């Protein structure tokens, strides 16, 4: 950026003329313009130029029909079933299978560790089982927003009881009889990368 106020203002004149400067830049330009006849002339010339530019538009035919034809001529996108089948084929490869198993084992271990840590250190005599022990583990895509997470969990009928773990997994509790349906709903959610039961069905 130039250090001279005149040069700084001169560079910004096109965007000043278009009303596209923030407050700080606008103040800089206006302060300088107030005392610089040369920049005032530039601004006037700028506006003639802008009017000329804006009065012109090229005549290009719309290519929508062609583009639509290209889209419609493409093979349909693979269904979820086909995508899962491809994924399964990939998992069956030995190296991938070992890595995937290791990753799932890590997530499960992290979830169990979290569950163990989150147990109360004491239980009053006669107290029942903790009301909301986690029975589903779920992981989301990295780009999923907080609202997506909340929506997915609420949509499954579950309650968040823990997470994110070190592996970015969340722990959810649902009533035992609702768990299969909740897991299925989570697995169908496009923001979810993994959803599975983490203890024996109650």
């Amino acid at each position, binding site marked *: *950026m130039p250090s001279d106020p005149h040069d700084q203002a*001169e*560079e*910004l004149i*096109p*965007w*000043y*003329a*278009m*009303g*596209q*400067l923030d407050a700080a830049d*606008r103040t800089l330009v*206006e302060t300088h*313009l*107030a005392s610089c006849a*040369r920049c*005032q*002339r*530039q*601004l*006037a*010339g*700028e*506006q*003639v*130029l*802008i009017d*000329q*530019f*804006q*009065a*012109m*538009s*090229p*005549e*290009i*035919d*719309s*290519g*929508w029909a*062609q*583009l*639509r034809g*290209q*889209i419609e001529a493409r093979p349909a*996108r693979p269904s979820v079933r086909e995508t899962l089948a491809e994924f399964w084929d990939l998992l069956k490869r030995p190296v991938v299978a070992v890595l995937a198993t290791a990753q799932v084992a890590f997530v499960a271990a992290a979830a169990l560790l979290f569950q163990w840590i989150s147990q109360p250190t004491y239980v009053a005599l006669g107290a029942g089982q903790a009301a909301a022990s986690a029975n589903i583990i779920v992981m989301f895509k990295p*780009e999923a927003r907080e609202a997506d997470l909340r929506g997915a969990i609420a949509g499954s009928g579950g309650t968040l009881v823990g997470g994110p773990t070190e592996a970015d997994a969340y722990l959810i509790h649902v009533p035992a009889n609702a768990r299969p349906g909740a897991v299925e709903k989570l697995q169908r959610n496009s923001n979810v990368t993994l959803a599975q039961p983490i203890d024996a069905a109650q």
Partner: protein
Amino acid sequence: MILNGAARRPRTEANRSSVLEENELLARVRARDLHAFERLYRIYQPRLARFLFNLVQRPQLVEEVLNDTMMVVWDTAGNFRGGSKLSTWVFSIAYRKAMKAKMRWPDPVEEQPFDPRVSSDPGPDEELEHQRLHDALMTAMNELSADHRAVVDLTYFHGLGYREIAEIMHCPVDTVKTRMFHARRRLKQAMSGQMFDWI
């Protein structure tokens, strides 16, 4: 004083509603709604055509690059995270596509000057004057590099700020300012005598 009212103010309300409409259309495009995509195409086609015409200067290439750009929008709509304006994202795709197309067609256009029509309808004398100014401006524009033309067009026609232009062209903001400064100087020199003296 010359300052008062000199600067054009952006039409913020209209801009806001069009941004909302475009984002709603994109959400439907993500769900593979071809009607929504057609609507989005028709919103962007004139703006992209103008931008691309300036960059590639070959009428026959404009439609190809424009459709390539919109095909990327259709294919990767799910990747747009809203970190920038939708228009910035679309124009940056168009810019990259145009630059690639220029690499395939490195030679200057076989005398196909950038010749958009003047859309106003003035009287005969005024029309002549406008036409002269228009011709001088087009000649001057054609002598600029593609990057300089892009900055001029994105600023004067599309009304974008220098930060947004830098995002589209993947370059520092100071580069945008410098390109604009030199482009204006070249335009001014080329149009000497056509417009009143700027300096």
